[in-house]
């Protein structure tokens, strides 16, 4: 049975009529890395909140359907039980800094202190997590002195250190440069291989194509399409619905329209595009 089961989920925030999520059905296997894509307002963050239990435990409003993870229903658990298994990072890293700690090391230890992990184990786990996301050199800095991209790494690390079974990341690389983003994707890929289930809302389609197992495309609160990254990202359906996909795909699509692109599939990365365009001559 799937590790995550979202069944007929429809949700509207308080005082709103238009549901932010409509009739979402989604199954995710253990160790799978799923990318969520969609325009602003499509419902990516809301779906992340629902997976992490904040809908309905923190955000009230109207909810139908259910979210199940690891055999338990979010509506039947308390938020603190749920968050032991499910970790969430937010779009804005600045607001995730606890505000109670003076160094990055302490900041990452915060969650472990809260759930009563013994001191020596805290130190070991924080060191490991720092190494995993490659931010050892930030350990003594103040979280407030960091750049947005660095803060995003700290936010990710402070959730990873809790070892959630399901990791939910809401645009975790939005303030990073392409190289930093790629490193995060590759670290997440590794975690998934080790059995962590990952859901990541993202825009960087090139890295999604390369690292994710599956793409779920959201539009106006509904799942428009899902499947293998390459198929979804190069599909006509996404294009017709105005999704911003990689410029390599767009360029090749235009070339295909003019009869220049002869390969069967459209490219998602620079290499594939270069190869395909190279064949045109």
């Amino acid at each position, binding site marked *: 049975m799937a590790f995550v089961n979202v069944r007929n989920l429809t949700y509207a925030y308080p005082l709103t009529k238009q549901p932010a999520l409509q009739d979402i059905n989604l199954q995710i296997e253990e160790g799978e890395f799923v990318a969520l894509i969609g325009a602003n307002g499509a419902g990516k963050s809301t779906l992340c909140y629902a997976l992490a239990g904040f809908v309905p435990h923190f955000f009230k409003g109207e909810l139908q359907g259910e979210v199940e993870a690891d055999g338990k229903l979010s509506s039947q658990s308390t938020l*603190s039980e749920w968050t032991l298994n499910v970790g969430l990072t937010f779009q804005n890293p600045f607001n995730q800094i606890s505000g*109670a700690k*003076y160094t990055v090391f302490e900041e990452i230890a915060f969650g472990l202190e*809260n759930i009563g992990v013994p001191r020596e184990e805290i130190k070991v786990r924080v060191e490991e997590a720092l190494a995993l996301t490659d931010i050892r050199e930030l350990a003594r800095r103040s979280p407030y*002195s960091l750049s947005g991209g660095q803060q995003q790494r700290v936010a990710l690390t402070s959730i990873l250190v809790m070892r959630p079974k399901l990791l939910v990341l809401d645009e975790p690389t939005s303030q990073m440069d392409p190289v930093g983003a790629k490193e995060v994707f590759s670290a997440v890929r590794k975690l998934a291989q080790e059995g962590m289930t990952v859901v990541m809302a993202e825009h960087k389609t090139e890295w999604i194509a390369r690292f994710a197992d599956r793409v779920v495309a959201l539009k106006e609160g509904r799942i428009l399409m899902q499947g293998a990254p390459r198929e979804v990202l190069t599909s006509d359906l996404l294009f017709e619905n105005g999704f911003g996909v990689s410029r390599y795909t767009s360029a090749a699509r235009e070339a295909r329209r003019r009869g220049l692109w002869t390969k069967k599939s459209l490219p998602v990365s620079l290499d594939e595009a270069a190869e395909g365009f190279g064949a045109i001559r």
Partner: protein
Amino acid sequence: MSDRLSFHVQRDSFLHRLNPLTKLTLAFALVVVAFVLPFYWTPIFVLFAVIVPLSVSGKIFREFSWAALRLILPAVGFLFVMQALFQPIGEQVVFKFYFLDATTESVAYAFRNAARIFVMISAFTLFLLSTHPSELMSDLTRRGLPSQFSYVVISTLQIIPQMQAKANAIIAAQRSRGLDTESSFLKRAGALGPLVGPLVFGSLVEVEERAIAIEARGFTSKRAKTSLYEIADSKFESVLRWSLVALVVLSIGLNLWHS
């Protein structure tokens, strides 16, 4: 932006190794003694026989004297001058400033008050210099202070760097949209008006997100919390704290008996 968010200076010293509560008790005890012991020179004695030697043995004499001379002394000096001039006591005029007289008595009175205030601020400066705020809070939480309370205290202490970091981000954003932040002060002050909105209203909106964020990290978990820091405490320190309490009681008693 500065990386230093607290006064705390990391050193390996006897003073740093003391339990935070012991140091807090000591600071309070010194203040009470300086204020209530009915001997004129008590505050000066406390300052030079206790606080200064402690700062030396705590390896923070340099930082301490910087704070004492540059921050505390000017403030206390001002207080001294004001009280010496305005306190209407005594006959023997030593100094005249227009219609204001400083008499031997008013100078002596002002000096004692200034010395007391000096002791008060420097005792707590010493405490802050040698104590990490997180350690203090973990220790107090371990002793039964609600963790929500420590969170409020610590996060309040962090509001300034937080605001600063955010102001920098907003300024960068406004500048990239053409807001002038580099010309004359007045022009800038006017132009920075648009900054106030996001800074203040942003904070209110962000409270919700921060609440979720700490929740996501188990803040309200029912399990007993642990602490990254090993906070030393010993029978000796416990005895020391109770002795300090006894000293406080004794000083107050002496004060009442004397008057």
